[in-house]
């Protein structure tokens, strides 16, 4: 498939790729030696910043004891890191499909760093879940055959999904890296991920912008509008995944399905969800997809 062979990579994009490669090389670390993995994580403190918990600000939060909040923070961490691990697997598959194929000659040198770093992120997030919770939550998404579109549209959607996923994940990572109340191991995995992701997000933004220019050249305004709706749905899906029935159940909350519905519908959550996706919405407004 030479779907992007017509893409005009600008000199600015090529310069950014070279710059990001230099930073990746300079910042390279051995993840298998970077982290200290203590036997246990502080059992009586939160594992996730309170303001990042899915119940924050809701009526349901008031009903939970401190012990229940701690337990919930533990399982919501597992949910977040599991989502990140599953998301990385999916994005690696898509980048692997494109590396060293016609049309991707310019970004390919950076793809090597991206793939290497993402593999390492997947390892340390999975390691955290398996060491301290004994499990990774399963991926509850499903890819439908009708998601396939024209190649250039498909490329734009795939790299948009990667970018959206990384931006939303980074909202959590950046916050937890800076939260001095959290256990050091929690802060460390979030800190390292945030540092690497700032490069990936910078790269992803430039790549998605170039792919969107291609979509605008080759598709009608209606088709562009439709893909915008699709990506809004994808953003909403990621938000929904932050409200995990599995996490509520493992935290010992009675009737987790109803609890999830009540928390998601709580009026306090709308403004919080809007903050989580603010960076993404601003990006798509800037490139001209969202209005």
């Amino acid at each position, binding site marked *: 498939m030479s779907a992007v062979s017509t893409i005009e990579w600008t000199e600015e994009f090529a310069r950014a790729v070279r710059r990001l490669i230099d930073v990746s090389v300079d910042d390279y670390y051995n993840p298998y030696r970077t982290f200290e993995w203590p036997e246990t994580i502080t059992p009586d403190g939160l594992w996730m910043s309170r303001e990042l918990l899915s119940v924050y600000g809701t009526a349901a939060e008031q009903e939970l004891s401190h012990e229940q909040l701690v337990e919930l923070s533990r399982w919501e961490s597992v949910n977040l890191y599991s989502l990140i691990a599953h998301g990385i697997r999916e994005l690696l598959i898509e980048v692997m499909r494109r590396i060293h194929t016609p049309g991707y000659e310019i970004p390919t040198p950076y793809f090597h760093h991206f793939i290497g770093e993402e593999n390492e992120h997947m390892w340390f997030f999975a390691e955290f879940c398996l060491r301290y919770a004994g499990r990774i939550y399963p991926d509850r998404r499903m890819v439908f055959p009708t998601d396939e579109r024209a190649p250039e549209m498909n490329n734009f959607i795939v790299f948009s999904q990667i970018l959206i996923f990384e931006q939303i994940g980074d909202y959590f990572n950046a916050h937890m890296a800076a939260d001095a109340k959290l256990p050091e191991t929690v802060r460390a995995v979030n800190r390292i991920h945030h540092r690497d992701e700032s490069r990936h997000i910078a790269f992803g933004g430039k790549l998605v912008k170039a792919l969107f220019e291609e979509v605008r050249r080759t598709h009608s305004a209606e088709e562009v509008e439709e893909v915008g709706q*699709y990506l809004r749905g994808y953003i909403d899906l990621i938000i929904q995944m932050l409200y995990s029935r599995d996490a509520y159940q493992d935290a010992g909350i009675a009737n987790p399905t109803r609890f999830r519905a009540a928390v998601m519908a709580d009026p306090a959550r709308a403004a919080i969800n809007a903050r989580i996706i603010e960076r993404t919405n601003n990006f798509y407004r800037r490139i001209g997809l969202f209005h």
Partner: protein
Amino acid sequence: MEEIINWIRSKNPDLDAEITGDTDLIESRLIASVSFLEFIGLLEELTGRQIDVTSLSVADFRTIDRINENFFAPVA
């Protein structure tokens, strides 16, 4: 099945056609990947059971008849 049809209609407010037992919900995009998680949540609520998505495929959700067969019939 009425709750499921109502949910599908709520996601597709412009839909005029009738949804029958063998309407292809996937090809017609009445259920999309981006709303799938919400759909699974609805199924779990209606059946009272947790659904292991990893053991299922798109075909298991293709029509109302298949959904009925896969998620509701075994309980009876």
